[in-house]
């Protein structure tokens, strides 16, 4: 076993240890054991950082990959298959190393931050325990080398998300939100599970490596459509977890959880797991599946952005922003901009965590006021928060010199290239939506910054009944809740909450990733995470001829990035496919086109972003356009956005109500029809029995009784003879003798 593997397993198990200790002993430990959680995560981060350093910095090899597995379930010598084992294992490649470091870092920072944010909560210890199990599950997803393990941790992440969203379970809305989150995830999970099953049913293994090798070797016996279906179904897992359309509805509601949790789970890590998973399965996605993914991502990005511009809750804006950004990542994967999408995952994780933690700081300082309409003028009171929040906002909006700029542009460039390669037309919708969303992002983030940090303090504007309600809702968990909280001084948060903000903001700057602020492709990340070679070469024969592939020389020039993995795949699977299969060529083309579109994307996106920010300034700073009047002017659109495109209502009316209707119908069916039949049969049998009984009593018993009656009557008659007088008997005896005598004599005579 490689020492890195050993270390990674230690990293994986450390948060679990934290969970086990804290869930059982938090009440016996000083400070409810928060130092333990932070310490353990610190250790984990230290080890992860070492792994990151060894893999990325020292080795610096795009094809780096080590794996180790063990037999978890041994099914013995299965008839028809042979020896069959289900294995569990760990794989470390560049992506894993980066994710490992990212997850542990953000988790560590969130742990640290939470010691301030959650201080005084009555379930303080349990909170850290839950953070521990979440981190464990998330690391599990990152490290897994097979579908089964990833599914397990996938669900466990769902559980930790459930537990943490519902951390303030006394609140009805929190309880609703946690259930909604879990169920929405489950819907995605069944798709993912079916996808896994399709692959397993063909190869009898869950391992990524073996499945890809088998696919590359063309051993997939089912039709090509099944493979596309498998890809789309697996993507459904991502739809659930990464809150893509149409399962995005749970993520905004998940903001009911504590804000650090939102930062860790619902911004940086868990929701990114979906994207990470799609990246893991990227090689088996057929072009058709990729199209579905691309459109889903684009639609999600656009839809969430339109919703975000009208939300008033500071966290909800960020939540929809997260959905939108996740849409970008998914879009990126869909269009084949693999590296860019993952790059965005990483950069987004940091700046979005920073934003959430910043918003948490604001909420904390504002005593659990979340509505931006009642904020304002926090710039001076919370300078640290303001600075970091702004930096992260710039990254999110995608202004140059930030990390977000590089990654987002890489995605958009990929999208343009994709549209070009696919032949334009409707495919241009994807980059268009992407750019439009970029503008909206800039707008709503500008709006947020302005509403929160600039202008006048509007705390006093809040309607009284609203306040009361709000206060009541938070009273259960807010140790700091003060009846006169508007009079309370708003001040900067303590160091343990400030430090994470600073670190995360620092990680939102371009030079961390690339020396060239305009091109992420020159940075270490894009170099270390090359687009892997696809394993679905079969498409060559079906649709390859329909579109003219680009010339082979052009290909050779743009595919250095995919050469190494392709060679590796060939080594493993003994791939018979020709190196220039359609899917491969398509991928190479897209990468090539993406590179070509790089500067186009930069220009367009910069313009859009500036447009968006300007619009925000026009509306909120210069007040040239009155937002309220505009809202009235375009009221249907405004309401459409404010009500989140009515998805909740639609789902409630269809799926929830529908399910309940079916449930009630079936339950009625069960008690009245099925059980009714049973009882009916029982009644029938009983009635038959009654009939039978009547028959029995009147006919059968009647006959019996008749016999008895006859005998009785005869007996009664004979009884007269039974006088008890001996003489009577003698008379009869003698009569009999005489009778015999006469009989005898007659016999004698004749």
């Amino acid at each position, binding site marked *: 076993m490689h020492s890195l593997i050993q270390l990674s397993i230690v990293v994986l198990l450390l948060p679990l240890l934290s969970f086990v200790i804290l869930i059982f002993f938090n009440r016996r430990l000083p400070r409810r054991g928060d130092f333990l959680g932070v310490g353990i995560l610190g250790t984990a981060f230290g080890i992860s950082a070492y792994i990151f350093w060894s893999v990325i910095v020292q080795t610096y090899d795009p094809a780096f990959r080590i794996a180790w597995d063990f037999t978890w379930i041994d099914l013995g010598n299965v008839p028809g298959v042979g020896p069959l084992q289900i294995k569990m294992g760990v794989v470390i490649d560049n992506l894993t190393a980066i994710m490992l470091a990212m997850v542990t870092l953000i988790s560590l920072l969130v742990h640290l931050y939470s010691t301030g944010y959650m201080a005084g909560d009555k379930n303080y210890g349990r909170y850290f325990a839950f953070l521990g199990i979440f981190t464990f599950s998330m690391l599990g997803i990152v490290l897994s080398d097979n579908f089964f393990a990833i599914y397990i941790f996938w669900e466990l992440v769902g559980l930790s998300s459930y537990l943490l969203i519902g951390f303030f379970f006394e609140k009805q809305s929190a309880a609703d939100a946690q259930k909604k989150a879990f169920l929405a995830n489950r819907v995605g999970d069944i798709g993912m599970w079916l996808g896994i099953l399709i692959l397993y049913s063909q190869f009898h293994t869950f391992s990524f490596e073996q499945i890809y090798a088998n696919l590359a070797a063309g051993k997939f016996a089912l039709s090509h459509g099944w493979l596309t279906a498998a890809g789309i179904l697996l993507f459904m897992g991502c739809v659930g977890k990464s809150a893509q359309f149409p399962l995005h509805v749970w993520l905004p509601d998940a903001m009911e959880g504590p804000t650090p949790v939102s930062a860790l789970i619902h911004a940086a890590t868990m929701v990114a797991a979906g994207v990470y998973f799609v990246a893991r399965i990227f090689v088996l996605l057929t072009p058709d599946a990729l199209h579905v993914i691309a459109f889903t991502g684009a639609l999600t990005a656009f839809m969430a952005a339109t919703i975000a511009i009208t939300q008033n809750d500071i966290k909800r804006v960020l939540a929809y922003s997260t959905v939108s950004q996740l849409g970008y990542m998914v879009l990126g994967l869909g269009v084949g901009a693999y590296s860019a999408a993952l790059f965005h995952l990483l950069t987004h994780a940091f700046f979005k965590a920073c934003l959430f933690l910043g918003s948490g700081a604001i909420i904390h300082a504002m005593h659990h006021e979340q509505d931006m309409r009642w904020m304002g003028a926090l710039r001076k009171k919370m300078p640290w928060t303001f600075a970091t929040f702004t930096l992260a906002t710039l990254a999110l909006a995608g202004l140059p010199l930030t990390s977000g700029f590089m990654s987002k542009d890489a995605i958009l460039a990929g999208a343009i290239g994709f549209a070009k390669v696919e032949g334009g037309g409707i495919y241009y919708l994807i980059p268009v939506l992407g750019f439009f969303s970029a503008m909206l992002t800039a707008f709503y983030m500008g709006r947020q910054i302005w509403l929160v940090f600039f202008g006048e303090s509007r705390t006093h504007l809040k309607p009284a009944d609203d306040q009361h309600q709000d206060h009541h809702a938070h009273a259960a968990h807010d140790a700091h809740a003060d009846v006169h909280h508007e009079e309370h001084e708003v001040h900067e948060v303590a160091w343990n909450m400030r430090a994470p903000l600073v670190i995360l903001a620092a990680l939102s700057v371009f030079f961390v990733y690339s020396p060239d602020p305009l091109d992420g492709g020159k940075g270490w990340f894009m170099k270390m995470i090359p687009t892997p070679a696809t394993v679905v070469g079969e498409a060559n024969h079906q649709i390859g001829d329909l579109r003219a592939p680009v010339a082979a020389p052009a290909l050779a020039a743009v595919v250095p990035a995919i050469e190494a993995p392709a060679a590796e795949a060939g080594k493993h699977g003994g791939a018979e496919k020709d190196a220039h299969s359609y899917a491969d060529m398509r991928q190479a083309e897209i990468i090539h086109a993406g590179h070509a579109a790089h500067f186009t994307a930069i220009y367009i996106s910069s313009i859009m972003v500036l447009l968006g920010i300007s619009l925000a300034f026009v509306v909120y700073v210069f007040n040239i356009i009155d937002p309220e009047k505009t809202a009235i002017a375009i009221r249907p659109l405004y309401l459409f956005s404010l009500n989140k495109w009515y998805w909740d209502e639609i789902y409630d009316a269809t799926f929830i109500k529908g399910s309940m209707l079916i449930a009630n119908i079936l339950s009625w069916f069960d008690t009245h029809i099925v059980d009714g039949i049973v009882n009916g049969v029982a009644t029938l049998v009983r009635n038959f029995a009654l009939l039978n009984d009547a028959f029995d009593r009147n006919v059968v018993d009647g006959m019996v009784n008749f016999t008895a009656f006859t005998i009785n009557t005869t007996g009664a008659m004979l009884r007269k003879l039974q006088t008890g007088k001996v*003489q*009577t008997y003698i008379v009869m005896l003698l009569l009999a003798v005489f009778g015999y*005598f*006469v009989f005898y*004599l007659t016999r004698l005579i004749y």
Partner: protein
Amino acid sequence: MSITTYTVIFYLFAAITVCSAAFVVFTRNVIYSAFSLLFTFFGVAALYVFLSADFIAVTQVVVYVGGILVLLLFGVMFTNSIMQTGQKSEVLHIFSGMLLLIGMIGALLYTFYTTHSWMPSETTLQGSIVERIGFETMSRYVLPFEMVSILLLAALIGAAFLARFDKSGK
């Protein structure tokens, strides 16, 4: 004694026997029955003599007339006060009784007279048989004899026991 005298005497005794027996049965008075029975027993004893069984005849007289009849008279007197006028014995089943009486006698007589012709064997009992009875009793019939003696003894003791007046009862 001529054969005619012999026959006449036989018929006389036969008549006495049958008529007295009929009287025993048909009279209502128990006392009359008892006395009438005396004649029957005598008649039967006489018939025994005709049948060369003089010893039996004597025994008949001794036992029946001396024993049984006295016993019966005692019984009558024990159970009925002799002065009582209602010494009449009730009857029942008179119809079937008569039917059977006539039918039975008729049938028997019919059988005796029509279906069988009795053939006397060459040797008949002649003269006194007392000696032979003694001989037979002590040889061939010694076991029945002894058993009957014991039975008689037991019966007599039992009868005495049964018929004794209960001292404690009264």
